Structure formats: C-alpha cells, structure tokens
C-alpha cells in the first residue's frame, strides 16, 4: 500500500495509480516519495484516526477531473499546491 490511510468506498483509483501520482509529485516538488506520502497521509488522517479529513475527501473533490474524485489523489494535488503557495 503506497499510502497508510485506511480504506474507503471513495478510494476508486488503483494502488498503481496512487504510486504513480506520488512519484510524479515527488519529482515535481523535488522531495522523496516517502516525504510526499507522509505529508499526504497527514492531510488525510489528521484529527481522529477513525475519521478521514472530509474537507479533502469525498465530494470535496468535485469538478477536479484530474483526480477522478479519489480523495487520495485529491490530497496529493493539495500537497503539490501547498508547495506552490
């Protein structure tokens, strides 16, 4: 599992797609894949361990065709945006 964020019906992307997105983010940000994954896991699980961050997850990814509404991909996009701003 490239990300340790539990399981969800909203996770529609494959593990390979997540791994590829992490590698691309690492290349774009100049960080290691592990560092990106740690930041993305924080974005998704911060708060109570039993509750994912719904501010990022679920329908929060609306209209972002790049992420196909998978909250893990949305969180990776958010991580990259954070590095820009």
């Amino acid at each position, binding site marked *: 599992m490239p990300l340790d964020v539990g399981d969800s019906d909203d996770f529609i992307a494959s593990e390979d797609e997540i791994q590829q997105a992490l590698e691309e983010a690492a290349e774009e940000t100049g960080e290691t894949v592990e560092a990106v994954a740690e*930041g993305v896991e*924080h*974005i998704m*699980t*911060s*708060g*109570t*361990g*039993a*509750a994912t*961050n*719904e*501010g*990022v*997850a*679920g*329908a*929060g990814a*609306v*209209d972002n065709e790049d992420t196909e509404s998978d909250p893990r991909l*949305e969180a990776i996009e*958010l*991580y990259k*945006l*954070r590095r*820009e*701003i």
Partner: protein
Amino acid sequence: MATQKETQGFETGRIDTDSKWYELYQKGIELGTWDVEKLVDKVGFKDDLDTWRSLEDEEKEQWARLIAAFADLEQAVAEDGRRIIEQMSSPYLDDNIEKEMYATVFTMTEAKHVQFFDIYINTVMKDFFPQSSLDIRRGGHPLPRTAACGMSDLGERQGAFMAAAADGGDPKDIARAATIYHLGVEGVAARGGYYMKNQMMSEAPLPLLNKGFQFVSTDEGRHVTHGLELLNELLEKERAGHPEYQGVDQVIWEEALETLPLVMDTAYFVSDAIDDPLGADFNGLIQRGAELWRAQYLETLELESYDPNAFMDTVQEAVDRFEDKDYDALIERNEEIYSRKLQEGVA
C-alpha cells in the same frame, strides 16, 4: 530532552523531536504555512463568481448561512488563539517547549482562516454579505446569519471558557475549554460543515472556496489532534489518582452534551430550515456526526462517562425545538442590530 533525528542527520538539545507536540509543530510548519493571497491569486475568483451569479437566491442563501458560520467562528477561535498560548504554560499541564512551539503555529493558522473567509465573502458573496466589518466581540456583533442560529452561542460559550482556562484555570476549566474549542467547534461543528459543503459543492461547485476549505480542514485536523492530546494528558492524571484532576472525565462529557444542540441547530439552520436546495443533507450529517462523536469521546478518549444513547437522544430533543424557530425573523432582527451598531460606529 535531547534527541537525534537520524534520518535527517541532525541532533537537538532542548527540543524533543520524538514528542507528539513536535510532530504537530513540524506538520504545521510544513503544511500550515500556505499563503492565502497566493492561493486566491493562483486559483482566481472567476469560476466561483460565474457559479455564484448563476445561483438562485435560495441557493445563495444556503451557502451564505454555512459560510457566515465559518467566517465568525474562525474569528472567534483566532481571537482565543492567544489564550491557547497562555494555557500551554499552565502548571497543570506538562511543561515542554514543543507545546509552546506548536501553539505559535496554531495561532497563525487560525488567523489565516479568518483572512480567507473574509476575502471570500467580500469578493464572491458580497450581495449576501453587504455588511461584515464588525468585530464579533469587543462590542461588535456576529454576522446576522450566525446570530440567528446556535453558532453565535457556541462562539460566546467558547470565549468564556477559554478565558477562564487561560486565567489560572484548574484542570477542569482547561478540560471544558479544550472540549468546546477543539472537539465541539473544530471536531464536530467544522467537520460537519465540511460534510455539508461537500454535498453542496456537487450542485454548485465553487473551486476557490473548495481549495480554501481543503487547506483549512487540514489545519483544523491538527487542532483536533491537539485537543485530544491535551485532554488525554488530563485524563491520564485523573486516572492516576491525582486529586486536583478528579472530575475531568465528567466535565468533558458534560461539555460535549452542552455543545451538541448548538451545533445541530446550526446544521438544521443551513439545511432543512430552508428546504435544503443544494442538498446539504441534514440526516446524512447526523450520521457523520455520530461517527465523529464516537471516534472522539469513546474510541480516542475512552471516557468513563460516555453514554452510547446520548448522541441520538440529544439530537432528537434539539430537533424538536428547532422546528418551531422562525429563523428568517431572527436574521431580520439581527440585520437591524448589525446596521444600528455600524451607524453607532462600533468597532
């Protein structure tokens, strides 16, 4: 405590890099220092303005009710940020520099949330927020929609308990303040708000607002973790038998129950009270709220006072009361108060 961060090849002297508070501090630095002005410059307002202008008035009203709550409560928590820093030096909490380092980042993030929502309502939603300059405290007034629902009382209650806790409060004062601030406002009310915005975004996508919410919610997640860590520290001392900490468990549970109807009033105000045109989904929110409630109070804090039936019983009692409220009349009355205070030159 000196520690060695082997993976990064450095050592520290007085800072414990293994501390949970250091981890929260470091994540705050890495992820919480996003720049609001750069965000609005990068994403822009155009798509949000296009969507906003296409909405019916009742749809705009629903967004305005939700965002008013965030605009005012973010200011309330930001104004209490200095009290968080004071609270960290309480003799009843374990003294460590990592807590104080974290508290400084915490306060900065809350200020940015105020900045984001203030920019947003005055740039995109101006027709529904013609007046928004009053301070919610210091003789000012909450936005009329906030004042019409439970969110205003929640903010006032939080301010009173935060002041008591910061001003030499005992462990029960600190526990009550942390419960309403981190678990009530940030843990249940804000996360319930994210649930509703997710539903509403499906019908009326506002990309800049959504990106702002994503950054805000990531920051708030750290703040909830902070609250749970703090409360667990107090509970551990109570369970170890320290006399001054007795009653902490009961106080946390009492405050959870006091706060819940105010949160539910706000959720009802945003959804079913106006026939839910954008599908915020009050019933779905109750189910999500129940999950968050159980995760916080039972699974994480393991409160002895926890009653599994209390959530639904409290919600049901509260809903019975909301159905008779005339929220439109309350908004109108508070608009009059707001205008009068502006004319009187209140800060």
